[in-house]
């Protein structure tokens, strides 16, 4: 128990901070912060597996998040029959062509000696394949995008419940990680960082501009929810009864029946959105707990020991007969898959997919700040990092506003300097993140909750 004291304290502080937000701002805000904290925690766990367990630096988190989001769209949106009719077959044919290209390249790579001829074969396969793709897909894409461009203009998805997309998202991200890992994992640490960062930008570029896939920058809105809608809740009798019971103390103070009814309906509207958020929290919490359980088990298993050995001394682990390359690839895929889950969760929570909003600042570097601040190599630390940094990210503006008002209280309200500072309040979050990261790196390089390995 004693060894967990700092973990418990840190989490208690975090939870009470969120409760304070609930009391002083509103429960709605508190739960939306809590939900995004949970999503961030999942992302951080993914990054932590790669960085903390294996020392692999992955600056492509944004790409995997976006792929998870894409999975949410492709799973939940009902298929657009008209688009399938005009272009579906050609797109399937293109998929087949891509598979053929990949397999024929593999065939050439395996069965030919290293020579100029081999290179020419590969190059010609790629060029011919690309030309076929261009010729087949061009008109198909054109006609797909012409199908009701204001509403659909894409192939649509499978029309399944959106929850499935969390698993599909993991597979998407894992698949990309397999390709990236095969290609880039041999690179040195900082090269790997830059390569993954750029690859994630390519992924975003593709999602943004291939409108037939997920409408690109036109966004997909109104995704189905796994939880009830506020409007439906407000007319459910059991929910109204629940709200009435919960707020009995307040309602009893009101004397006239009419006013009581008005207050109750107001309360129902307010609590319905809180209730929806609580439902999401429950779902996300289940994911976080399952992942935490699995990752903790993995960390203390022989496999976890091997990963640490590889991280701390690659050559020695290699000499002991561990397949470093294979394990690196495996952990790269696993970590990215978890990030993919988080990406799908995020789109599920927002109910919309906006490829334009994926920016490296928010989805890559912020997640890295979370990992470093929380404590790399420690799952509890990673989750805490996700919570603390996201909380600060959201609450930075109010805090900055308070501080500015405090320090410039001597100045008049019309002072241009003061007004300018107040106008730029949103950017203080970057300042806080940066300074926080620098301070942690300097004075507590292992994070708030450092990695602690107790051998039983």
């Amino acid at each position, binding site marked *: 128990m004693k060894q967990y004291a700092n973990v418990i304290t840190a989490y208690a502080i975090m939870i009470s901070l969120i409760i304070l937000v609930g009391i002083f701002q509103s429960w709605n805000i508190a739960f939306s912060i809590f939900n995004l904290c949970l999503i961030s925690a999942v992302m951080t766990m993914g990054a932590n597996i790669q960085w903390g367990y294996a020392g692999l*630096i992955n600056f492509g988190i944004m790409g995997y998040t976006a792929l998870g989001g894409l999975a949410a769209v492709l799973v939940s949106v009902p298929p657009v029959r008209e688009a399938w009719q005009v272009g579906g077959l050609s797109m399937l044919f293109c998929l087949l062509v891509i598979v053929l290209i990949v397999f024929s390249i593999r065939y050439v790579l395996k069965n030919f000696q290293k020579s100029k001829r081999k290179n020419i074969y590969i190059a010609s396969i790629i060029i011919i394949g690309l030309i076929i793709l261009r010729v087949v897909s061009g008109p198909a894409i054109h006609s797909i995008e012409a199908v009701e461009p204001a509403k659909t203009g894409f192939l649509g998805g499978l029309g399944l419940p959106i929850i499935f997309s969390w698993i599909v998202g993991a597979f998407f991200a894992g698949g990309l990680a397999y390709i990236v890992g095969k*290609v*880039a994992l041999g*690179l*040195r*640490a*900082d*090269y790997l*960082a*830059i*390569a993954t*960062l*750029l*690859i994630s*930008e*390519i992924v975003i*570029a*593709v999602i*943004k*501009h291939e409108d037939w896939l997920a409408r690109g920058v036109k966004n997909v809105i109104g995704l189905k929810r796994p939880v009830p809608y506020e409007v439906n809740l407000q007319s459910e009798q059991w929910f109204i009864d629940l709200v009435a019971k919960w707020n009995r103390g307040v309602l009893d103070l009101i004397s006239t029946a009419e006013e009581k009814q008005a207050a109750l309906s107001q309360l129902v509207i307010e609590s319905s959105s809180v209730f929806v958020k609580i439902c999401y929290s429950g779902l996300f919490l289940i994911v976080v707990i399952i992942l935490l359980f699995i990752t903790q088990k993995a960390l203390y298993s022989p496999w976890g020991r091997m990963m640490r050995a590889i991280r701390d001394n690659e050559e020695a682990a290699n000499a002991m007969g561990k397949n470093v390359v294979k394990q690196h690839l495996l952990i790269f895929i696993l970590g990215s898959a978890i990030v993919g889950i988080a990406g799908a969760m995020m789109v599920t929570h927002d109910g919309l997919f906006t490829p334009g909003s994926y920016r490296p*600042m928010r989805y890559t*570097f912020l997640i*890295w*700040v979370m990992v*470093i601040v929380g404590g790399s190599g420690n799952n509890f630390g990673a989750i805490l990092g996700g919570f603390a940094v996201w909380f600060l990210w959201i609450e930075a503006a109010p805090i900055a506003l308070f501080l500015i008002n405090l320090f410039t209280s001597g100045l008049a309200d019309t002072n241009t300097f003061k007004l300018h*500072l107040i*106008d*730029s309040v949103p*950017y*203080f*979050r*970057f*300042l806080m*993140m*940066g*300074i926080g*990261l*620098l301070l942690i*790196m*300097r004075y507590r*390089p292992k994070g708030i909750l450092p990695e602690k390995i107790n051998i039983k």
Partner: protein
Amino acid sequence: MDFLNAIILLLNYIFVPALAYGSQLALGAIFVTLIYGILRFANFATGDMMSFGTMVAILFTWYFQSLGISLGVLPTALLAIPLAVVFMILYMLTIDKFVFSYYRIKKSPPVQLAMVSIGVMFVTQAIVRIIIGPFDRRFFDGEKFIIKANQFKEMTGLNEGLTIKSTQVITIFLTIIVVSILFWFLNKTKTGKSMRAYSDNEDLALLSGIDPKRVVMITWMIAGILATIGGVLYGLDKSFKPFTYFNNMLPIFAAAIVGGIGNPFGAFLGGYVIAFSEIFLTYAYKKFFMYVLPESMEPNSLIQLLSTDYKFAVSFSILVVVLLFRPSGIFKGKIL
């Protein structure tokens, strides 16, 4: 005649813009490469440091404009560059003193320094946005064009016009001056040679009495000059927006790595490689072929290899390919 028209077309839409853009990238790439070669880490704050320098230059430009000082046909910002450079160098040295030097003395692994540079990136970004805001700023004044399309058409009697913006000429001109001074400095002066020695083998350089503090300081000074000039030139040519500058970090990295990171000459060429391939691959060649080919063979599609949306993706793909087949870059890296 048609052939001449085709050449002018390519000059106008590919060659001149790519040369200007490539020069801007090249300056940034040399900055990245110097930091990587001498301080031994990938500086993720590159784009934001450039935007800091540009911001200072813009503030001075505004100040000069309010005083009524101008350079006539040239943009006032050129006058502000020296002052901006001073501020940029001061900022970089401050950051080095309070942030980077600790890890350098501790001999932390490069990855840790790269992480620290992310912290610096956040802070710099915040400072720039707090001071000047996140909006698009144009600070160009003076004569905009050297040759206008219409003038050119009248002069030569061709169908295609050639537009040369003064910012493009200034960019190319300044880049040539800065880069040649830099190479002269690195190759001919004693300080430059000591920097190269330090980059090549730190321990040996220390043994032969090279003062590491001085080397680091001069590196930051050169970096400050490059970052400011590169940033201001980009801002003059296009416009200044902190977010764009942050994004520019990516093609700059690509240029530095393609050229062989740690090799300034490679980085210089890498900038042009990236710029030219971006524009070559995303340009629609329809009109070009209309001039060159006989009428019966005229193309009816755009003849565009990739849509312009993938402009950035092109440079990144080049980078990935280079990393795969020649991890040390086209021109062997790691020798300054």
